[in-house]
């Protein structure tokens, strides 16, 4: 187990380093000089040059990379070109919306998908199964932003039950939560469809294994074999998808945030890209990538908890 942990941690560090290099390099090739963007079209060339100097854009490339990396490690993400405030503060402010939204969506999608997948597998070929697989098929095909628009049209505009968009901030917790309900549903439903499908097929595959026959031969009913033996074995692919979904929900909210005019991380990145606020883009994308990599690390640890073959290789 110690060896497994150490290897995974080393590979985690390597992935993070590689990702930081890729992001830094990608930002370098983005056309457009941030200094000219900040000062506008009509700025004098020497003012621009002075600003470039001040922003550290004239330093050698390698030096700037190391500087950026050292800053990241200390939580210093630099100063936004457009907002003129520390990037860390900007990101933290946006995360206060995006992280709860992603969490809410994840809980919702899991709470929907797990029972649906289990019922479908347990009643394979019956009405409940057909209903779940049919709904899941449609759920996967629905673009979440269109689904969001339809939710707004019905729940916000026609029935006036929930706000159509905007975010009042956590100072008003009840209103803030209400503002997140429709976005969370819009995000969660397609993900729930994917998760339910994966769980169903993993369960069905597990039910075809020899050890299920053994379990049935010792007197377990089909349902007991499903919940006691197949479910745990089916969790492994489900964990993989859950891990991927968390990061997708964090970043994939970008379009949903557009529909609901939510000031989240996705919109921050989107606006920063169009305004060439590269330092914000760099740090925010890095943060998302860190989230993905850390989540996949946690998923690996979860595998080891589920599967003794990883924990105690023979």
């Amino acid at each position, binding site marked *: 187990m110690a*060896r497994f942990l*150490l290897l995974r941690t080393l590979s985690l560090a390597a992935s993070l380093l590689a990702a930081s290099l890729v992001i830094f390099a990608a930002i370098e090739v983005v056309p457009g000089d941030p200094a000219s963007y900040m000062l506008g079209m009509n700025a004098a060339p020497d003012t621009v040059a002075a600003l470039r100097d001040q922003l550290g854009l004239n330093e050698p490339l390698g030096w700037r990379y190391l500087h950026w990396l050292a800053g990241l490690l200390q939580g210093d993400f630099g100063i936004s070109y457009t907002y003129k405030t520390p990037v860390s503060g900007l990101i933290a402010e946006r995360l206060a919306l995006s992280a709860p939204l992603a969490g809410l969506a994840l809980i919702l999608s899991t709470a929907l998908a797990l029972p649906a997948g289990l019922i479908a597998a347990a009643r394979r070929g019956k009405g409940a199964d057909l209903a779940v697989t049919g709904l899941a098929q449609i759920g996967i095909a629905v673009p979440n932003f269109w689904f969001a628009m339809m939710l707004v049209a019905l729940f916000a505009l026609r029935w006036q039950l929930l706000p159509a968009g905007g975010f009042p901030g956590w100072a008003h917790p009840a209103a803030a939560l209400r503002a997140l309900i429709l976005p969370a549903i819009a995000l969660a439903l397609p993900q729930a469809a994917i998760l339910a499908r994966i769980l169903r097929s993993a369960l069905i595959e597990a039910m075809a*294994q*020899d*050890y299920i*026959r*053994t*379990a*049935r*031969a*010792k*007197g*377990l*009913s*089909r349902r*007991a074999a499903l919940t*006691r*033996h197949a479910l*745990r*074995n089916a969790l492994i692919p489900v964990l993989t998808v859950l891990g991927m979904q968390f990061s997708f929900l964090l970043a994939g909210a970008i379009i949903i945030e557009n529909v609901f005019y939510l000031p989240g991380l996705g919109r921050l990145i989107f606006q920063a890209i169009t305004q060439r606020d590269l330092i914000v883009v760099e740090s925010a994308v890095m943060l998302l990538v860190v989230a993905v990599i850390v989540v996949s690390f946690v998923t690996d640890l979860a595998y080891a908890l*589920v*599967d*003794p*073959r990883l924990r*105690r*290789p*023979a």
Partner: protein
Amino acid sequence: MSLLAIERLGVSIGTTVVLHEVSLRLEAGEILGLVGESGSGKSMTALAVMGLLPEGTQATGSVRLAGREITTLAERELCRLRGAGVGMIFQEPMTALNPLMTIGDQVAETLIVHRGLARSEARRIARDRLDRVGLPAPRFPLTLFPHELSGGQRQRVAIALAIALRPQLLIADEPTTALDVTTQAEVLDLLRELAHEEGMALLLITHDLAVTAQMAARVAVMQDGRIVEEGPTEALFRAPARPYTRALLAAARLAPLSDEYLDQGKATGAFSCQEDPKPDAGALLRVEDARRSYRLPRPALFAPAPARHAVDGVSFALHPGESLGLVGESGCGKSTLTRAILGLDPLSGGRITLAGAPVSPRMPPAQRAAVQVVFQDPYGSFDPRQTVARLIAEPFHLTGRPPDAEARIDAALSDVGLSPADRDRYIHEFSGGQRQRLAIARALIIRPRLIVLDEAVSALDVRVRAQVLALLARLQAAHGLSYLFISHDLSVVRAVTTRCLVMQAGKIVEEGPTADLFTAPRHPYTRRLLAATPRLPETWSTLDPPPASGA
């Protein structure tokens, strides 16, 4: 009253009838062997007794266990019966246990499900049962997971959970087919002992007549979903009434190569004279101190990585025209050695020469053409998307396609007993035995000097196996081929080779003329292998005409 009484049991899937009026009786404490070739309906009969027939099957007739009709039982009642009144073990121990659950919990589960015992009490009994099947406490704690056990040990766990509640009937469906011979002997001993000591009836399903002869007092022979013959094992095997049973027995009792055959072979120069081994004179294949080791994961982070010596200093020579056997159990290194001889994998030490030139993964095509191979799995040996003509012409890649390629494809097909008309068919249209014939045709087509037969008949039913072995012998005499015959099955090796090597843990432990090796083995391992190999008793001869029975 019989413990188990099956009467006129019929099972069909859609319009296909898989069991046809099967009737069987099994008394308490009795061992009944149910034998037959693959697809004869043995397993389906067992599943019907368990009430575990696959969905979509319809059953007719009656199955009574201790007087209780089970074909009409509700699923809930069947669950109560399974595991308590009747236990079952299956063929594949590697996959029969839940990989995520400890062996203790898996045995205890039987007790918890049926008796509603507390976990601690169930685990106490589980401990006792595991002790009983030969997995004693200190070495095999309840907390082990299946992947930490060998195949034989896993089969013992499967037995422990099947007998946890001391059922009156245990069904064992090919319980030792996936195991090595020495492990097979141990597991069979255990089953016999359990039946004897616990008064448990055993329905032993197997394709292996020798295993049946050793284990069962009574035997039933199945063919195409019917019981064709049934009776006390010895009497039935001595005097089978049905031609099918006689054919099975004849095929199972592989005769060693006959003296006339050997003499004839020597006279025509087809075999070298193995009584006069001159190791250096004109060997076709020479293996000298071959070694191949794999690095294992480090036990601790900075400890040196230990190595596993799969092949550990093997030397031997194979002479032109010779048929050399190589036997050993799984993991002995014979597969690794085979891959090196075929020039697929490199050696880490020593050398192999074929017809005087060194063998390596980079050897030139012309040299590679001196050796061809027939693999074990008739289903995985052919690309499903190519026609037979293209498949068996594949080795022409080594020699360049000769002008008479088409004629040679036809000739190769005829040679192995198939028709040239088969050339445009696809592989899924052929049976397992036909596929092995095609594999032989593919190996023959460029007239290699050596054919490596890597468990080439192990996956075949006995009658087909006998036919393919006869074909191999005929082809060897006709074309002056040399065979390297690799197998785990001693009886097969005995039937087709003149000289034999025994491999254990990467080393050749014994070498000599096959006849001597089987009659006077010198190495203890060879003796153990021979003792463990089930054999039809020599005295139960079926080669004599069946006694005329008036009744």
